[in-house]
């Protein structure tokens, strides 16, 4: 570009003198201005389009899904027979400019493990199994079937055993249900570290 401009200047010098030069500078100025403005506007558009790639969570939004433990329910509410139950995960999520109050950000399945054993230790986190209710196959919500004692997804007929694992025969999901960390606090309060994971991949990759 630069070199061509130089030769242009040279030419105009030779051919027409100051008038042509003024014209040339005017044209260059105008051209640069228009090009610059267009580049800036276009750059703005591209930056805007790519914004989700580098957007930081707003301050205090840590509780919207990743990292923090959230209260889900109490231990007594889990059926004694080992049936898995779906619970909403309630928090105060932020969506762009809106902060919601006590709104569900997803669902978890909770289930008593070692069901039927006595005595029941309500403070032992290993007594409770927790999974994200989203199917790791394509992201639909799975259901627990009491008769079959398994998890079933209506979208693509993925099936998981009661412990969240894949059944021996072929399942549609590339990995087992996404288990979640459990903490028991106070007098049998179940707290879950709620996370979303990349669906459709064999490895369980948390989304940030």
């Amino acid at each position, binding site marked *: 570009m630069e070199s061509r401009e130089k030769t242009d200047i040279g030419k105009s010098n030779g051919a027409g003198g100051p008038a042509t030069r003024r014209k040339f500078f005017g044209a260059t100025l105008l051209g640069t201005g228009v090009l610059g403005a267009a580049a800036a506007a276009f750059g703005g558009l591209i930056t805007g*389009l*790519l914004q*989700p*790639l580098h*957007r930081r969570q707003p301050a205090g939004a840590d509780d919207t*899904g990743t990292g923090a433990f959230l209260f889900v329910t*109490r231990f*007594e*509410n889990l059926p004694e027979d080992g049936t898995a139950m*779906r619970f*909403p*995960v309630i928090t105060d*999520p932020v*969506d*762009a*400019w*809106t902060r919601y109050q006590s*709104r*569900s*950000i*997803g*669902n978890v399945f909770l289930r008593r493990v070692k069901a039927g054993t006595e005595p029941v230790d309500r403070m032992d986190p290993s007594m409770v199994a927790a999974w994200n*209710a989203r199917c790791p*196959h*394509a*992201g*639909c*919500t799975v*259901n627990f079937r*009491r*008769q079959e004692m398994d998890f079933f*997804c*209506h*979208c*693509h*007929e993925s099936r998981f055993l009661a412990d969240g694992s*894949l059944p021996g025969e*072929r*399942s*549609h*999901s*590339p990995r087992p249900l996404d288990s979640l960390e459990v903490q028991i606090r106070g007098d049998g309060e179940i707290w879950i570290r709620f996370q*979303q994971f*990349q*669906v*459709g*991949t*064999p490895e369980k990759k948390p*989304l940030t």
Partner: protein
Amino acid sequence: MIRLLINLVREWTGPAESHGSAGTDGGPTQAAAERNLLSIPARVLHFWVPDRGSWGFAMVVSILGCFGLLTVSGFALWLFYSPSVNSAWESVFFIENRVAFGHWIRGIHYLTSDVLIVLVIIYLIYQVLSHSYTRVGGLWFYLTLGLFGLILFSSLVGLLLPWDQQGYWSTRIRLDITSSLPVAGPVMAKILSGSEPLGHLSLTRSTVFHMGLVPPAIIFILLAMAGIHALDRKNRADAGRQPSSAALADILLRSGVVWMVTLLAIFLSGGLHMVLGGEENWGAPHLKGPADPASNYPIARPEWYFLWLFQSLKYFPGEMMIIGTAVIPGMLTLFILAMPIAGRHRWGHRANCTIGLFVLCVIAGLSLKAFLTDYWDEDYNIQRETAMMEGRRAVQLATDGIPPQGALAMLKQDPMTRGPELFAAHCASCHRYNGHDGQGLIPEDPQSAPDLFAFASVPWIEKLLQQSHFQSGRMFGGTEFREGEMAEFIEEDLSGLDDEDTTALTEVITALSAQAGLPYQTELDAESATEQMLATIASGREHLVYTFGCVDCHEFELPDEDATAPLLTGYGSKDWLTGFIANPAHPKFYGDSNDRMPAFLDESILTEEQIGLLADWIRQDWKFAPAPDIAGSWLKPDGN
């Protein structure tokens, strides 16, 4: 037949356009212009017409027509649309129900986009079959493909805009699948979604894609096609190959026929939604409930043009999933892109046609399979009906004005919507609601507590006070109270009554049911009851206390420390019910004699809000409530 029509139109439009390249030949056209009013459009058209008045050109005319319809209806919709989580569904509701012709405009917009996709597919197939896909080195075909891609993209993005359950969940799953694609998948999904989880920014972004970026891109492609077309004609003319222009009549007729078929298809596709989709009106499918990311929407399905991919996912389990999501669509794209290149050779063209036909058959077969699987699946149909009812309910509630928190919050506070869910989840393992779990399914556990349909209404209390019903599984047959004091009382004191006492009992029932203040028993309301009814109620209260001695065990109106049975003051009212559900073992209610019912509030199983919703639902105290169908239930006089 068509030939005859063409001849007729030809007669009418006068002499056919003369041959020669566009706009350059003066004489004959000028002469024609004086004779025929149609010659100005004829000259314009003449410039555009491909070598023969082909069906392909007619399809291009219809594609342009559809694009025009979409643009006009789209602008009309845009006047009212508001992209944010708290206003998208709401504004589409407004368009559908409050804007003059809004339902029709949205219907045309929605259905035209579907028909346009079909039309472009047919045009692509036509190009292959007529061997015109090699035209201008395949450029024409590629531009048509670009057009197809843009229309598809715009349509997919547009589906999210109403922010209803269907749009939300199909987008949610589509983005999840996109993000699982290798290499650029996650980045693409992020750019398309705008925010994760989907929210305000997904809607603003989709709006920009749908209304701001795609239409100019489509116009750009159309202009490019026009330019190529003109160049192509000029080149041919320069090369001395005179394009044999078709008669104007031909062009008009074929374009007219295709356009009419297109319009008919738009009209009929609305009918198809009514026949196959159970829609009540012609137009875009009825709004589903407002998008609820926390809900379970098991009937999420992709749009019809992706149904085959959805179905193919079922055949690639586990780690092979990528074959269905990336490999097959990728290979198909490559094949289509290679078609014009291979098509230059005779055998390549044959291979294109054969493979293309095979692929089309497979796609059609998979789509049909996916459709029929759902069509015959009972569970799916029940869930679909539930989703549609929720949508209708949301619209019904919205007609009364949507609160500023939005339609989702509105629906979350609606007892009619929430009651069945809560009842099925927390009550139906013991109780029933008219024999089912509130949602229409029969629970696995046998019934062990009373059926609460029309609880505390006159017919319900009538049943309660009959020995055979009290001790039946419908009432207290499955509880400890089967052999309790109440059962004894009914057996000893309420059977074999004389006429006078029977009348007295009827009055007691009326008086007790009046305590509930049920919205569907306005005739018992103190404010709207007749003189005669008020007298009956007053008399019933007397009988309740003195004749039958209910107050021996129950507390009624006067404080009674010794009461052992549930309070009868306000029996079945909202306060009574919420108190009872909160803790049935409270001294006011069963006290120590409570059987198995948990204290839903005190044991923090349910929140106060949830209990309130349940109570309102059991009392059928909600907006736009029809009267409960007693005659169709077991509460009818001779029912059991």
